[in-house]
Every structure is written in C-alpha cells, then in structure tokens.
C-alpha cells in the first residue's frame, strides 16, 4: 500500500469514527424491544425483553414513561423496572397491578454532554416465558424540555 493510500484510509477511518461518535439516527435505535403493536383502544406499545434500551434527546429535561406489566411478578409481587440514564441509576418503577398502565414522570439530570442523545436502559425484574420472552409493555414516551 502506498503512503498516499495509507493516509487516505486513515483519514476515512478518522472521519468515520468522528461521525459515529454522535450519529443523527441514534434516536431511532432501540435494543431489546419488539415491534410496535396496538391494543384494541388504540394505544401503541412495544414489548421489552428482560432489558431494553432507547434514546432520548439530550435537550429533554424530563420524560413520562408509560409501563404496563401484564404478567405479575413472582408470587404476585409487583414487577420492578430499574431505569438508568447513560449507565447511571435514575429510578425504580414499581408496577403493582399487572393490567394497569403506570405513567411515571422522570426528571432527566442536567449533566453536560456533547452528544445529541442520552441512552435510557430499562432492567425488568422478571420475564414471562412463552413463545417469546417478554418483559413489560412500554407506551409512547413523552419528553419535556426545549425540543420536546
């Protein structure tokens, strides 16, 4: 490989890495979540697995996270969803009644970041095992703040 080609490859690598540091499409990326569905009254939701991740705008100052357990925890105990923002613990949400949607408003900490999005991770205390492994239902998240 000539020196020119090496420099070109290195430059492409650096440009690619710079782009991937904060890509604009990250807000659409999820992990551990099944496809959107709609239950009869018209409420859109997605099932999580035992853990799930999604992204919200860094400008948001808070979010309302709708959750529904559907299946109870072991021995009828509430299902607990632990919420993390960029790997920092934010809240534990208790879902005591399986059929009820729980709308929890969570303030998002104002930490300095150069990224467009913050990562939200959910860890669910139990899963329901059938043809699929299911955690909890998540509804459409409402954001607060300048870009909400």
């Amino acid at each position, binding site marked *: 490989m000539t020196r020119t080609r090496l420099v070109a490859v290195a430059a492409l690598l650096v440009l690619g*890495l710079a782009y*991937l*540091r*904060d*890509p604009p499409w*990250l807000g659409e*990326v999820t*992990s*551990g979540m099944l496809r959107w569905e709609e239950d009869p009254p018209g409420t859109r939701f997605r099932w999580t*697995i*035992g*853990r799930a*991740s999604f992204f919200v705008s860094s400008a948001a100052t808070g979010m309302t996270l709708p959750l529904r357990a559907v299946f109870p925890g072991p021995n009828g105990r509430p299902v607990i969803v632990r919420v993390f923002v*960029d790997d920092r613990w934010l809240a534990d949400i208790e879902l005591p009644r399986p059929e009820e949607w729980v709308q929890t408003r969570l303030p998002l900490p104002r930490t300095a970041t150069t*990224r467009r*999005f913050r*990562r939200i*991770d959910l*860890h*669910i*205390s*139990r*899963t329901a*095992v059938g043809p*699929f*492994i299911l*955690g909890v239902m998540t509804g459409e998240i409402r954001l607060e703040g300048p870009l909400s």
Partner: protein
Amino acid sequence: MIRWGLRYFVGFAAVCGLAGYLWLFTRDSADAPIRSDGYFYYLYAPSWLIYHDVSLEAVAQDWNGGVYPGGIERWPGTNRWLNRLPIGVAVLMMPFVIVADLLTRWSNLPRDGFSLYYQHAAALAGLAYFLVGLAVLRRTLSRYFAPAVTLWTLVAITWGTNLFHYAVYDGTFSHAFSFALVCALVELTDLWWAQPARRLTAALGLVAGLIVITRLTNGLLLALVPAWRLTSWSQVGGRVDDLWQRRGAVLAMSALAAAVVAPQLAIYKFATNHWIVNSYAPYGLGFTFLSPHLFGALFSTQRGLFFWSPVLLLAVAGAFVARGWARQVLPAAAVVFALNAWVIASWTEWQYGASYGHRAFIDSLALMAIFLAAFFTWVGERPRLVPPVAAVATLATALSVVQMIQYWLRVWPVRDTTWEQYRALFLTFR
C-alpha cells in the same frame, strides 16, 4: 476478460453480498441478524467478552430473567446451561465482535451484546468468512484448472447453490464459517503433502481444530488429510510410511488441533460433568444410522441437495470424467462425501429445520467445486458440448438465484415443501 473476472471475482461477490445484505436488513419487516441457530452460535461471544462469564448464566439473567428460549437447557444433575451448539462460530466471530464492542462504547450504544453494532458485526463476519473461503478456493482451483474453468466454477458454487444465501441472509449460522474452513483444509492439505513446512503444519492443525469446534460432525472431513490423493488400496501402506516419516509434523498438527478443541471439551465438562456429550440429547435428537433419509437429503422437494442446487449434478458427472489432480483427489473426496451424506441423512431432523436448500452440505462445497471444475474442463475439450452445458449451467444457476430471492420474500415454506407446493409457487414472487 476471463483473467480480469477471476481477479476481481471475490470483490464482485463482496459487492453483491453487501447489496443483498443491505436490501434484506433495511426492510421494515427484517428480522434481527442474530436469530434462530445464529443466536446460539453467537451467544458465547457476549458471554465471554461483555459479561466475563463462561457459564452463560449472566446473559440469561440480564436478558431473559434467568431463562433461555428453546435451544439451551440446564443439564440435569449440574443445573448448568448447556448450549446445544459449539463454540467455533463465536471464536471466529470474535475479532468482529471486539470491533463492534469498541464502536458501541464510542457511540454510547448499550453494551448489551445484542444492540445494533453487535448484530451487524456477527452477520458480516459470516459474509467475510465466505469471501475468504472463495479466495482460498480460487487459489486451489487456479493451480490445477484453466482460468475460465475456475471462474465459472466459482460462479456456479456461489450462486448455483445455497452458499450465497447462508453468507448473506443467515450469516450468523455456521455454514459460511465452515465453508471457509473446509476451503482452507483442502488448500493446506494439498500444500502440506507437497511440502510439509512448519507454517503449513501449524495452519493445518489450527484449521482442523476450528473445523471440529465450528460443527462437530465436520470432524469427519479431517479424513481428507491422511487420504489425500490416495488412488488405490495398494498405496495405503506407502501412505502409512509417509505419515510415519512425518510423525513430528503429524504430532504437532494433532497437538495444535487438540489445543483448539480443548476449550469446547472443558465447557462440556463444566456444564455436564462429562468431557463428551450429545448436546442435543435434551431435545430428543440424535442419529438413526440404520435408516438414513438419503433420498430426502439428496433429491426430495423438502430439502434435496440436488433438487434445490441442480448445478451440483454437474459435479457428480465431473467425478466420472475427472483426470489428473482431480482424479487423484476423487477417492478421498468421494468417501468423505458419502460418509458425510450418510451422517447428514441419519440426523433425526434431516431437513435441518427452516432453511433454503440443504444447508448441511454447504460445508463440503469446496470438495464438490473440484469435480465441477473437472467437468467443465472435460466439456471444454469437447467444443460441441460447450453451448448446451453452458446453457444448462446458466439456467441451473439462475434458477437457484431466483429461488433464493423467493425464499427471501418468504414465498417458499421454510420446510416440508411438497411437489404440489413447488409447482404452485414456481417463479412466483408474492
């Protein structure tokens, strides 16, 4: 033109593979690349790299509340997880998964082992090994066949069979990896018998070990090494003498292969308290050697190798007309192919689940490529036969591509296809 085509063939296959991959995995209805058997092959990689856990317990707890979907069971007695699929694919994927892991940290994606970059790294690893396999196969064939024969053989093997499908659509399954390893086995075995250099001995030992831990039954293919280019029983004694003279290299090769296989045995011992185990036993699967489904595996509409990849019938013809080097390779290749077919057809689930064509034969396509090339050479020496054979080979390859796209569009049943279904769905795309 032919030399140019041969030179850039692997690059062209890469472009086609990436185009197919993008088309498949950017559709709204696309499944995640890590799915089905691919999930179980891949599972070791995040367990080791991210969860620092060889027991597979951490992924079960973190993702699934302490369980797994069918495919991994707790072994009775030890209560530890036993993955029915071996570690080789995860080992071969590991460089790709490490890059994905670094990029995941860089982009602030969840370091959970299954988020965006991990999914594509695992699947593109399969595509990359398929390309490596093609490059190695080109090298082997180019040594013994004319450039035109080598080129058309590569085209037929890539698109006339289900190889391309398993590199692009199901790249997390073991077949693209096994294809590359068997191509390497053929190349290294051929070179090693010509000149037993240390680097060839080491490479052959490494590849032999990887073949076993990628797909355990492919250990059968290692019989090619001692039997390479033996053409009669009278040569067997001489071959034993040859191996004895090379005993140092044979020992080194075997030791290296054993070292590669050792972690798999250690995992079996840890999970079950046994060094060797039928990991499919919890699912009631095993071999029925006295009643193999040979017709089904080779010719049926359900899964027949030659029904779904008819261009390979030309390789069978090639076995009868092979000359020179290919003729010398034939006895070992034929015995290994026959034994392999018997093993594949004796598996309780001889259709190998949901798949396009018979996926278990992909691993040994490197052997069939030799006889396809031998057939094309024989035809090339008979100019009157060239047009009809070229037409048949082109049609068979085109049919395979069309049927692969039908499978991608979910036109075909994923298993148990009947003749009536085949006729009804032939060349339909909805």
